[in-house]
């Protein structure tokens, strides 16, 4: 009897484990069966899983409701993820061909992600789509070797964000943002007083640091990469000039917070919001956050200094892509096209839509410099090693900011290391 009990308890344990495992398997097999039967019906139908950024939680559900009015047979299951570790998670899923059907992702990730073979070429689904309505830079960023791996819905560039009250207190014109880098420095010197710094630059987070440096170089009409993207140009001409300027603002002119090496883009926004920094560079997405955290702050904006005809500024943005292993490509492509349409993207994007025809929708005065910047916006070259190059450059910049080497030597070291990497492929 005792033995029977023991055997029974073991069998029960085994059964629980086994049922838990088959439970998962059953779930997926029934859903795929449902999809294949549904596929035979007219129009796209079935289930689509979408991976979404968690800051879109407030807008996506409504958009999905609208999508379902148009496509009542498609069920969309939206799963939200935080920014932290997002690109890693997405990449791993794409590599293992085991993830969602549709992904909301940064435009800049597309070149690297497409190499995993996990993204669907959307070209054949776009016959009726007005592709020339997209900002050219944003659309081009989604193309790799002539294939279209996603469609943009959100675009933005950095601009200058400044505190009008601090400008007034320092005797500067609060309605006019500095338009050259010399003016930025002169104004920053006047603004630096007590515990307030005139200008903020990031010294942490490779993406944040290089984004600012590259924009500064582009605003001077310089280049960061050679035209064949095989070499980095930070050790000469405008590249070195602006790298030195970055360092001098901190080390020599002391108009940047001494905590620079601790500050990433978010930290700088917080310093600005609390009135400890008078100017910094960021995207229009920071404006509502600042407004909400400190409604009394009098914010002004401008384009990146010296930006104009013949110059450029980095285009950032988000896109919607479908996966190559989706069991329901028609429904997935329908969702991509819906979310990136002019009407949807106005609601979907928390900055600007990626559609040119939506420009008149944005009327806020502080948004105008950012909107104008879009004319000059171009994405960084679509090289898969971009993140690695950014990391190499930012590590060397940190060395110079910490005073362990000169900026010139740091940039030389960065170029040597990066060129080795870029020519290896």
């Amino acid at each position, binding site marked *: 009897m*005792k*033995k029977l009990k*023991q*055997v029974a*308890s*073991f069998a029960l*344990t*085994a059964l629980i*484990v086994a049922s838990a495992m088959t439970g998962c398997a059953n779930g997926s097999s029934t859903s795929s069966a449902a999809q294949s039967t549904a596929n035979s019906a007219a129009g796209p139908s079935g289930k689509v899983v979408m991976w979404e950024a968690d800051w879109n939680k407030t807008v996506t559900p409504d958009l999905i409701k609208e999508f379902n009015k148009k496509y009542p047979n498609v069920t969309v299951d939206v799963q939200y993820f935080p920014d932290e*570790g997002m*690109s*890693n998670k997405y*990449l791993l899923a794409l*590599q293992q061909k085991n993830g969602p059907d549709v992904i909301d992702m940064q435009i800049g990730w597309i070149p*690297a992600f497409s*190499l*995993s*073979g996990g993204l669907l070429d959307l070209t054949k689904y776009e016959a009726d789509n007005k592709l020339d309505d997209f900002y050219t830079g944003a659309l081009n960023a989604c193309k790799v070797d002539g294939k279209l791996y996603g469609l943009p819905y959100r675009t933005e560039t950095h601009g200058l964000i400044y505190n009008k009250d601090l400008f007034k207190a320092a005797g500067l014109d609060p309605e006019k943002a500095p338009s050259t880098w010399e003016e930025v420095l002169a104004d920053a010197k006047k603004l630096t007083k007590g*515990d307030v*710094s005139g200008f903020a630059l990031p*010294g*942490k*987070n*490779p993406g944040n640091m290089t984004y600012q440096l590259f924009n500064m170089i582009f605003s001077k009409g310089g280049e960061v990469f050679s035209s064949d993207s095989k070499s980095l140009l930070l050790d000469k001409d405008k590249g070195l000039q602006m790298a030195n300027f970055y360092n001098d603002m901190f080390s020599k002119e002391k108009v940047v*917070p*001494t*905590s*620079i*090496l*601790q500050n990433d883009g978010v930290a700088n926004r917080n*310093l600005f919001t609390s009135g*400890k920094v008078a100017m910094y560079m960021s995207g229009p997405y920071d404006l509502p956050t600042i407004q909400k955290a400190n409604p009394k702050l009098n914010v002004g904006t401008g384009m990146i200094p010296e930006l104009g005809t013949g110059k450029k500024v980095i285009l950032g943005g988000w896109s919607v892509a479908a996966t190559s292993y989706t069991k329901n490509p028609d429904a997935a492509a329908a969702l991509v096209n819906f979310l990136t349409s002019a009407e949807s993207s106005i609601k979907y994007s928390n900055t600007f839509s990626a559609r040119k025809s939506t420009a008149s929708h944005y009327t806020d005065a502080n948004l105008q410099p950012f909107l104008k910047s879009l004319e000059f916006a171009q994405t960084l070259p679509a090289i*898969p*090693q971009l*993140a*690695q190059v950014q*990391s190499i450059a930012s*590590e*060397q910049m*940190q*060395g110079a*900011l*910490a005073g*362990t080497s000169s900026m010139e030597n740091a940039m030389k070291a960065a170029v040597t290391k990066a060129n080795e990497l870029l020519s290896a*492929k």
Partner: protein
Amino acid sequence: MSKKSKFSGIGYVLPALFIIAFAMLGPLIYTIIQSLYKSTLYTPTWQFTGFSQYASLIMEDEFRQSIGHTLIWTVGSVTFQFLVGFAAAMFIHQKFLKGRTGLRILLMVPWVLPSIIGAIVWQWMYNSDFGIINYFLQSIGLVNSSVAWLSDPKVAMNAAIIVNVWKMFPYVMLMIEASLQTVPESIKEAAQIDGARPIRVFFTVTLPHIWGTCTTLILLLVIWTLNAFTFIFVLTGGGPNNATQTLPMYIQKMSFQNYDFGRASAAGTILFIITAFVSIVYMKLVSRDGDKS
């Protein structure tokens, strides 16, 4: 023990064993195999390269530096985690102390607080412009200009170690104090009657009693610290200019920034070998000590 109860014992552990094999052994073997292949995002298929990735890692300055940083990080953290925890346990164990329960709970806060929250709070405390630590040090006149705790390559590692000690000392305190409570009063009293002074009582009665706890604790701390990631990731991100890049940080960077999975696996395997080696040698040393006594 009869045969049938032995069988039922295996039956009970089998599900757990299966899960452990699935969740731990599987990835470990996978990592070791992957370390022998070139596998990056840009190479769609794995190419067998033997031990060449290990060789190139050992030749790389950045990798060797990160091993050095791991060593400083581990020795520094574990030494002070243990010493501070031990001292706190001795202190809190004193009977004359009033409100010991309250104090114990208060001291446990760092350990109970999620690491990520602790790290972010420390990050702000360390801030060279607005951090409370610099404010305090300057107001009592200990330093003239603010210390760049996380930005100065010479200071950043120490700053990270301080946070790690802060986080883990309560755990050491808890374990040591629990162990102290098992030391029989009668033996201590007997030693006192024989004329032993408190220090003598501590070394001849208390310490041998809690020795087993101490050695296990140190081993656990070493393993945890070797593999620790959160604090350095949040506080310094491995910077400035890789000054605080430990091996786990290097592995993370190799795989999730450079997408070089083969190389990351090789580095991961090296970390595994280091951890296993340290653990085995340590256990051998400790158990030999045990034989002597």
